[in-house]
């Protein structure tokens, strides 16, 4: 007898058959691997000045990607700078999803005035231009990885909240929810144990895409000089080198490519998850 396949297992199978998604996942694993373990392979101080400023890639052996405006090795900076970008991306996405799910679940489950109130709040946050508001927060409360993650999370949750709410509105009318209620399950049990697991597929997809958005967000803030001043990050590298753009394109282009490929990989994975959870839509 074959083992019964869970819906998640089935979706995973679908995912593995989706070539772009698997390619995205592989690319992501490579990037994360380099960022996490790269400094073991290339044990070097990113702040060390290795050669003249703005050395072109390949111009000198041992400095494959050239140097930045201070003469630091771009390859080593890249390895070091991915960490904060990804850490902020992940924790901001986590915060976004947590706030979004909590707001959306309460609004969708209880309806009535709770729904009205929370939806007004959601609309309010959608009116605030996210990056500008995050800039205000970071400027007022001093930039650090924590405040930056917090700022990104605070401005990004409305999308997740709307999605969660829609799912809750749909699922709460289904029979198994009524069944759970009829055997005496309380509100919190129904929300977290009955409805949420069934609302997960679209939320997982949206969480994956949120990671991409959060990475871009962090890059934007760092580019503006609002990143954590004590660390290196990809956006910051672009921001610092842009004044020398007319003399040297590579210190700007290369970190941008790193951001681009990371977000591209994340969204390929997100699209793949989406297709895996909604096989019907695949023909689109």
């Amino acid at each position: 007898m074959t083992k019964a396949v869970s819906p998640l297992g089935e979706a995973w199978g679908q995912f593995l058959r989706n070539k772009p998604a698997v390619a995205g996942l592989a690319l992501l694993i490579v990037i994360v691997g380099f960022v996490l373990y790269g400094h073991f392979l290339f044990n070097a101080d990113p702040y060390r000045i290795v050669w003249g400023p703005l050395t072109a890639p390949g111009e000198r052996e041992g400095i494959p990607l050239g140097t930045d405006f201070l003469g630091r090795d771009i390859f080593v900076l890249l390895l070091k700078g991915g960490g904060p970008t990804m850490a902020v991306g992940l924790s901001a996405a986590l915060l976004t999803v947590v706030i979004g799910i909590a707001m959306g679940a309460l609004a969708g489950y209880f309806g009535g005035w709770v729904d009205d109130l929370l939806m007004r709040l959601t609309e309010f946050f959608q009116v605030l231009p996210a990056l500008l508001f995050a800039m205000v927060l970071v400027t007022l409360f001093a930039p650090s990885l924590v405040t930056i993650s917090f700022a990104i999370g605070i401005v990004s949750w409305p999308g997740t909240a709307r999605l969660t709410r829609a799912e809750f509105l749909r699922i709460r009318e289904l029979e198994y929810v009524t069944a759970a209620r009829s055997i005496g399950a309380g509100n919190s049990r129904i929300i977290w144990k009955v409805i949420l697991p069934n609302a997960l597929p679209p939320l997982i997809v949206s969480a994956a895409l949120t990671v991409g958005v959060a990475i871009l967000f962090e890059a934007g803030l760092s580019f503006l000089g609002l990143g954590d001043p004590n660390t290196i990050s990809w956006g910051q590298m672009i921001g610092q080198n842009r004044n020398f753009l007319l003399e040297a394109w590579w210190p700007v282009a290369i970190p941008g490519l790193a951001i681009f490929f990371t977000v591209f990989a994340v969204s390929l994975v997100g699209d793949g998850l989406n297709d895996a959870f909604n096989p019907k839509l695949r023909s689109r």
Partner: protein
Amino acid sequence: MAMMRYILQRLLYGLILMLGVVVLNFFLIHAAPGDAAEVIAGEMGGTTEEMMAQIRAHYGLDQSIMVQLWIYLKQIAMGDLGTSYHFNRPVTELILQRLGPTVMLALSAQLIAMLLGVVLGVLSSRRPQGILSGFVSVFSTVGYAAPVFWTGLMLVILFAVWIPLFPVEGYVSARFRGTGLAYALNVAWHLVLPATTLGILFLAQYARLSRTAMIEVLGADYIRTARAKGLGEGKVTFNHALRNAVLPILTIAGLQFGNLISGALLVETVFNWPGMGRLAFDSVLRRDYPTLLGVLFFASAFVVLANLLTDLSYRFADPRIRTGGR
């Protein structure tokens, strides 16, 4: 009339949202570490005791927090967003000067993105499995993944340095003395790269969205009816299908204005475009909080207004909502 009542209702709601922004600003100033007067004065270095006393008096900072909120609200209602101690000018005046360039940039980008995006989407919807469709799918993921400020810098290298077609930055050439049409053309020439940069970010989304919407609409029964009448494919696509596919596109367009402003902020910084985003960037560097919060206020107002206009155009485009059926 139902339409007027609706507009008034929406305006009132917009005002409430703006009130929310003001209250938020107020509490942010007070929640920030340090004395509120210091926050308002910013890290000017040169702030004198006399100036601090003036700020305290102006904002009633020795009174209870509710009284302070009331004073703050009253000032904003009168159009007083405070004074920029860095520029030594009223914030409102400072921002109004920068409003035009930002609105011009944001709307040109939105226009480029929507028009081109819809054209791409419509063309690719005719062959859902064709090459153009594949291109739209890939391009929409690529356009979304590239950080907008980086796209801008890459365009500068390409089209201002390597192939010097457009200026590297700025709003108008430094020693330009022309007026009238010549001036407008010079500004337009400077606008091309920033607007394209910002447009690319949204173009991909519109192309993908309009492709999906068109594919769905082209399968509708009324399209078959239109063909059965003997209409040609051009009229079927553009009169009958697009007129319906525009509805979901408008909905998304309305949700984009916040992102549009965020994007404009980065693009203005890249191209040294003298708009609100550039102003926000400068005031961050100088810790000029009244200006920064003023920009937040005006940018939110722009989003509220743009949403209202989108809503109205949606009602105009969909008779089912306009005539109150359904």
